[in-house]
Every structure is written in C-alpha cells, then in structure tokens.
C-alpha cells in the first residue's frame, strides 16, 4: 500500500510537473517550427479575403460532406463518437474538473458519474473498433506506422485505466489512479512529437486550407 501511495504521490507531484513542462515546451517548439516557416507572398488578385473562409473551414471540416460520409461512414461515425466520448470524459468528469480548477483556476459544471461512465465504456469500444479498422482496411493498413499504433495504445490506456480506477477493478486504488494519471502524462509528453499534435495543428491546417481556397472564391 505504501509503495502504491508513493507511486501515486510521485505521478501527482514531480512527474506531473515534468509532463506538463515537456508538453508545454514541445508544443511551443512545434508551433514555432510551423509559423517561422511563413508563407510566400501571394500576388494573384484575390476573389475574397482569407480570414472569413479560413475561420469557417476551421469549424466546417468537423462535419464530413455527404459524399464522403457515404463512402467512409465508419471513419466518420466512429471517429466522431470516440472523439466526443473522450472529450466528455476529459472535460465533464467532476474529478477532472477539480484538477483543471486546481491547475488553471477555471471550472465548469460536470456530468453525473454514471453518465460519464457510460460514455467512457462507449469510447473504449469505439477505440477498439478504430484499431480493428486500422488493421483491416487496406488503405489504413498501408499508411499506418508504428507511431499510429503507439498513439492508439496510449490513448486507449488513458481511457482504460480511468475506467478501471473508477470501478475499483485494480487494487490497491492508489495504484489504479496512479496508472491512470501516468498514462495521461505519457500522452501529454507524446502529444507535441506525434500526430497527437493535430489536437492543435488541425485548426491551423484547416485555416490555411480555408484561406487558400477562400481566396480563390471557394469555401473549402
């Protein structure tokens, strides 16, 4: 028990700070790497401004166009379900809100635990489905790299350890909670150096896309 408690205190203390520091420095480095590259000046007469269409695409790409939905329904539906499930569990589980309150000073209302519990179970199942799809679909199998499987594993571990800790399925509890926190910290550490950066950069990418098309008079 004391070993488990020591582990929990370590992940909540020094390790948490290390993870946050690597995450912050790594993310800033990645954003600087992107923005310092800049864009060449564009001398072609624009049809429209870049900001409006860019901002619209930042949001609109969240929804697939009808044709893509028809051709890749699994990608769209399962992708949506697990992303939303993950966000609900991350942002609306009351103990998580307490953590945000402690670190950021910001807080908001949460959802009742049984609701978050159900959402977490659905998230786990859909995450498993994405793995099966990645291994089975010829395109996904062909383009997948070690990083894809590594990132899948860490995301799955974060949700799974949270689920196990909540249901007291691993004893002692401090060990279960410690593993959950450690998984989340590993995810934070990996975030700036893997495709997990899309959490931030996808919005930059969408802006550039929307701006480039919008300039030419097309809402992308």
């Amino acid at each position: 028990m004391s070993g488990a408690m020591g582990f929990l205190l370590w992940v909540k203390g020094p390790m948490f700070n290390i993870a946050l520091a690597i995450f912050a420095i790594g993310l800033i480095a990645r954003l600087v790497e992107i923005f310092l590259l800049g864009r060449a000046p564009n001398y072609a007469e624009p049809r429209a401004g870049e900001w409006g269409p860019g901002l619209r695409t930042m949001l609109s790409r969240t929804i697939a166009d009808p044709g893509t939905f028809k051709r890749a329904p699994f990608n769209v539906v399962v992708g949506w379900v697990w992303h939303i499930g993950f966000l609900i569990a991350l942002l609306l589980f009351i103990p998580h809100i307490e953590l945000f309150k402690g670190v950021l000073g910001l807080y908001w209302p949460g959802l009742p635990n049984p609701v978050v519990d159900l959402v977490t179970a659905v998230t786990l199942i859909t995450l498993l489905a994405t793995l099966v799809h990645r291994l089975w679909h010829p395109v996904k199998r062909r383009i997948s790299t070690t990083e894809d499987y590594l990132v899948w594993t860490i995301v799955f571990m974060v949700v799974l350890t949270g689920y196990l800790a909540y249901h007291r399925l691993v004893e002692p509890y401090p060990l279960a909670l410690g593993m959950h926190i450690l998984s989340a910290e590993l995810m934070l550490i990996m975030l700036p150096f893997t495709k997990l950066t899309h959490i931030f950069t996808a919005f930059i990418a969408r802006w550039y896309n929307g701006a480039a098309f919008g300039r030419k008079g097309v809402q992308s």
Partner: protein
Amino acid sequence: MSELTLERGLAAFRAEIDAPTAAFFSSCVHCGVCAQSCPFYLETGDPKYTPILKLEPLRLIWEAEFTLWGRIKGLLGLQEKVTDAMLAEWEELLYDSCSMCGRCSMVCPVGNDLAYMIRKSREGMVQAGHAPEGLINASIRAVTTGSPMGLQWKTLAVQIKHVEASTGLEVPVDKTGAEYLVMLSSMEVINFPEYLEAITKIFDHAGVTWTLSTQCFEATNAGIQIGNKDIAAQLVERVVAAAETLKVSKVISPECGHAFTAIRWEGPNLIGRPYPFRVFHIVEVLDELRATGRIQTEGKEDDRLSMHDPCNLARKSGVIQQQRNLIDLVAEDFVDMNEHGRFQWCCGAGGGVSSNERAEELKMAAFKRKKAQIEEVAPERMVTMCATCRTQLEEGLEEYNMDIPVIGLTEMIADHLVEKPRAAAEHDAEA
C-alpha cells in the same frame, strides 16, 4: 541543363516546405479518408494511390529537417531518409496517379491541402531527375516552340483563315489597345478549332474588342504540370510580355482548366509581381456579357444535357455558377450531376496525366468515376469547358461504347446567338 541529382531534388523539396505544409503534416492522423476522394484509388482499389502516401518524400524531409523530434531521431540514426530509389518508386504516385484535382484537399478532416503539397513535391521530383518522359518532352517543346504540342503560329494562322472564311468576320491579330488578349491552348487549336470560331462570333455579336498575339498564343503551362518553377515562370512571362506589348487590360484564358489556374493564380507568384492586367476564364467573360445583356440568344437545345466542371475551374478557381447561368440561357433540359461544383469528380486527365503517355491505363481507370456519375443522370450530351477534360470525356465515353457527344460551352453559346443583335437595353439580363 545541369545534372539532376538526388541532392538537387532534396534541396528543392526542402525549399518548398512552408508553414501550411508543416501544419498539414503535423495534423495528419492517417485516417485514410483522402483515399475515398481519389478517383485513382477508388477505381483501382490499390492503397498505394492513397493521396497522403503520395506525399511521403516531402513528409520525410519535413520530419527530418523541420521538426525537433525528427532532428533528435536523426542524431540517433532512427530517421528514415529519402533515397533515389524511393523517388523512383514515387514517380508513378506523384505524376501518373494524381491529376492534382484537389478533391482530397476538400475532404481531409484535419484540413490538409494535399494537392498543394503534390504540386510542391513535383518541384523536388524534377530536380532529382524523376519526372515522366512525356512531361519532360512537353516542357521542352513549350520552352523551345512556345507550345507543349510543338504547335506553331503558322498552323494557327491557317485556322484563322478558315474561321474568317466561314464567318465573314475578322479575327483580330496583334491589335494594340484591344480590351481583351485571347489566349488559346494547343489542344484546343488542334482538337477543337470550333472554339476560335465561337469566340469570334460571340465577341463580334457583343461588340467586344479583342486580339490574338503572334508573340504568344499558348496559355497552358507545362512547367506547372511537371513542377518546374523556372520553366513555369518563363512561360508566364511570355504571356505577360504579349499583354504588355498590346496594352490590353484583360487576358482571357481559354477553355482549359490548368491554363486558367496557371495564369490566374500561380502566374503572378511565379514571376514575383502582380500583373498590370486582369485574368479571366472565357466562361467568366461570357457570363459577364450575359449579365450585362450583351449576349442575346435565341432557341434552346432540347436534348438532355449534363455538365462536367473542370477541377481547375470549379474547385480550384471558384468558377461554378457562371457556366450554369450560361447553360440555362441555351438549354431546356439541363441536369447537374449529383456531386458537382466544388465536389465534382475529376475526368482523370488533368495535372499532366494526359501528357504522360505511360499513364494512359490509370487515366482511363480514373475516368470510370466520371463515367459512373454520367450514367447516374443519363444525359444525351455532355457539356464542358476544358479541352483536356473534353478530350478525356470523348475518349473515355468512346472506350466504354457510350454514345454521348461532348460539346464545349462556348460553341454552344455561339450556336444560339441572334443574328442581328437588338439593343441591349431591351433585354432582361437575367432572361
């Protein structure tokens, strides 16, 4: 030309990496949705044609040289390198199986503009000596003769004579101070001479002053298709010089998709300065003439028509409504395809694929997507406004024994002009 090497290729790839490229590669989650938007993947079922995979050389260079983690991996000897053998393998992926139609750029959930990066990758491929023979030859002909097909002014001069004889109108050549400089594509001059006749009639009817230039008549840009900025800039400079010599205020790009994006969007950036004139696609000009009541038509086509939007014109340039306004003017029974405008499907021949002879089989495979779209709405004829698309549609429909003629929109408009134009004011512009 000095020797093309892997080193030069890598340097060219490196020079292409900018903030959007870095944001795009940072964001890819390998979801594979881009494949579902690519006619080359969908119609062959081969996952190697997944758009994001085509960008692997550029991505590797970005990762190795433009990211912290890639540099660390490099120091540890873990970073995969771009090799000559890799580029040789990727030549087919970056040229033969990509028409740069930009559909993947419209559907990528994280917003990656993949076509933008394909265009960039080709710059590296050329410098590394891995561009297709067909495109190399087209580029050499474009530089040396002024036309990617080796067409010379004297051939066009013969055609001008024919047009003048059949219409009784003058085809203006080298007229200083005309409003419009009309550019052509060699493909059009050779395959669709009716286009020149059509604009001669329409501009006479609408009272538009225009001219051709003996200095430069070719609007297409083989340099952009192959991916060589120097050649591309040289070809754009010729158009600019011709327009400046004749002091025109507007330049018209012909019924050709890539010529339009080349001169309209890439051109000023290739030469590093804005133009002293404006650029329009012929369809934009015709729609403007329609809207201001300067085109008066009579009679309508009564068979069932559908339309193919050239990727370069619609998705990549925002010309979508204009062709529909025009067809409404002259067609009674027009039906749009289910996915049209910015979500239309490529004919399979753009982006240099049609100049790359060895890509013929892939080009015809990609056409099957268009064919399926055509079958869905079952038109009696197809209308389009790009000579490359039109040739591909004709060849494809022929290959599949589908008896559906293809017609250019400009000639269809010309066929319906009223003989003696009444006063523009009498006409309702929106009729």
